[in-house]
């Protein structure tokens, strides 16, 4: 048993959920020290979410897509960090189905996270600047119109869960997977289980760690391998990359932080490998961090950050 790790995770959770918590660097160090720390922290986070049900019995009238006041308070109190936002955005979407509108839209603004639970236990985590349309009738179909969503699907052999993105369909085969509808293309990455991409056409089966990318305006899909443990890590405020173009990194950062992060055209395709931890909402700190991690010069602009190549001497 890893009892001590779970105790530590519980302590970090208690600390980090405090509105006055500021020691994000130490938490980050602890999370990065051992993958088991991450898992324990994830469990503590899920426990935090689950305990939130106690509040919903007090304020049960949360309309979909609109956080009740106590949650909004929680976000402000939490200093608008990526982690706090993830916890504060918990939204229970539980029956009854068959309401007048057949579709239900779940949306987030830049820098916001939201967790959706479906009646069957399926959980969908929305990253920032994301729009997801759910079918209220069957509860097993979703369409990602923009942004990024991490699906934890409760598998049902007879009622497979499917996600449409950019006209292509993917069907869950028992899974945790991440879908991105980006500005230049779409991507699906499988953390656990398997997904069947385009079942009626190419029918590509994607197992754990498989990442499928399709650029807009192209019919070619490209499949790569990633570390399954890093897929969906954005949910805990971590962006992990292996040979990802900097333009992609900037897109993700914009979504997650709400700041506009732009990469100089000369750097857009430069590959980046590494992890960026989003801790806090301090733009100066983020700029300093990025300059070090990504090895670029970061210029502050009124609405965000501009990344360009370091001047060489």
């Amino acid at each position, binding site marked *: 048993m890893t009892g001590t790790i779970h*105790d530590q995770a519980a302590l970090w959770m208690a600390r980090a959920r405090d509105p*006055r918590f500021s020691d994000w660097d130490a938490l980050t160090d602890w999370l990065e020290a051992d993958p088991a720390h991450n898992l324990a922290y*994830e469990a503590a986070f899920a426990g935090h979410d689950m305990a*939130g*049900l106690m509040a919903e019995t007090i304020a049960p009238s949360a309309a979909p897509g609109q956080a009740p006041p106590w949650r909004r308070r929680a976000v402000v109190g939490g200093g608008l960090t990526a982690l706090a936002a993830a916890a504060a955005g918990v939204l*229970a979407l539980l029956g009854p189905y068959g309401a007048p509108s057949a579709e239900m839209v779940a949306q987030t603004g830049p820098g916001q996270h939201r967790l959706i639970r479906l009646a069957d236990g399926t959980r969908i985590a929305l990253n920032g600047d994301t729009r997801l349309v759910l079918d209220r009738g069957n509860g097993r179909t979703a369409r990602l119109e923009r942004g990024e969503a991490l699906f*934890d699907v409760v598998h049902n052999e007879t009622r497979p869960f499917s996600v449409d993105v950019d006209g292509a369909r993917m069907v869950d085969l028992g899974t945790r997977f991440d879908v991105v509808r980006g500005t230049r293309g779409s991507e699906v990455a499988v*953390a656990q289980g398997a997904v069947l991409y385009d079942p009626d056409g190419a029918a590509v089966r994607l197992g754990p760690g498989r990442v499928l990318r399709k650029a807009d305006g192209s019919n070619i899909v490209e499949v790569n391998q990633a570390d399954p443990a890093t897929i969906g890590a954005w949910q805990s405020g971590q962006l992990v990359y292996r040979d990802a173009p900097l333009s992609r990194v900037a897109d993700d950062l914009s979504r997650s932080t709400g700041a506009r992060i732009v990469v100089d055209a000369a750097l857009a395709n430069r590959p980046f490998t590494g992890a960026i931890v989003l801790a806090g909402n301090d733009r100066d700190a983020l700029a300093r961090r990025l300059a070090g991690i990504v090895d670029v010069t970061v210029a502050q602009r009124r609405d965000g950050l501009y990344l360009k190549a370091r001047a060489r001497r």
Partner: protein
Amino acid sequence: MLAARQRLRQVERALATLGERTQSIFRRFRIDGVSQSRIAQEEGISLSAVEKHLQRAYRTVAALVDEDQDVVPTKRNRAP
């Protein structure tokens, strides 16, 4: 709503094993969003004592998640 009600009962039952004080401190923190330092003032105890109460509560609800595979389906495929 049944699943949510069941989970809620699970949380409440688990927290009930921790005693009155831990429970009320956790509620103040998690549901009312009150800071640890203010809870310490209210309860007349030290900040680190508040932290310990919260740690126990979080440890308990986290364990619930590990147990209940339906709550966190991501744990399904993991080896025990």
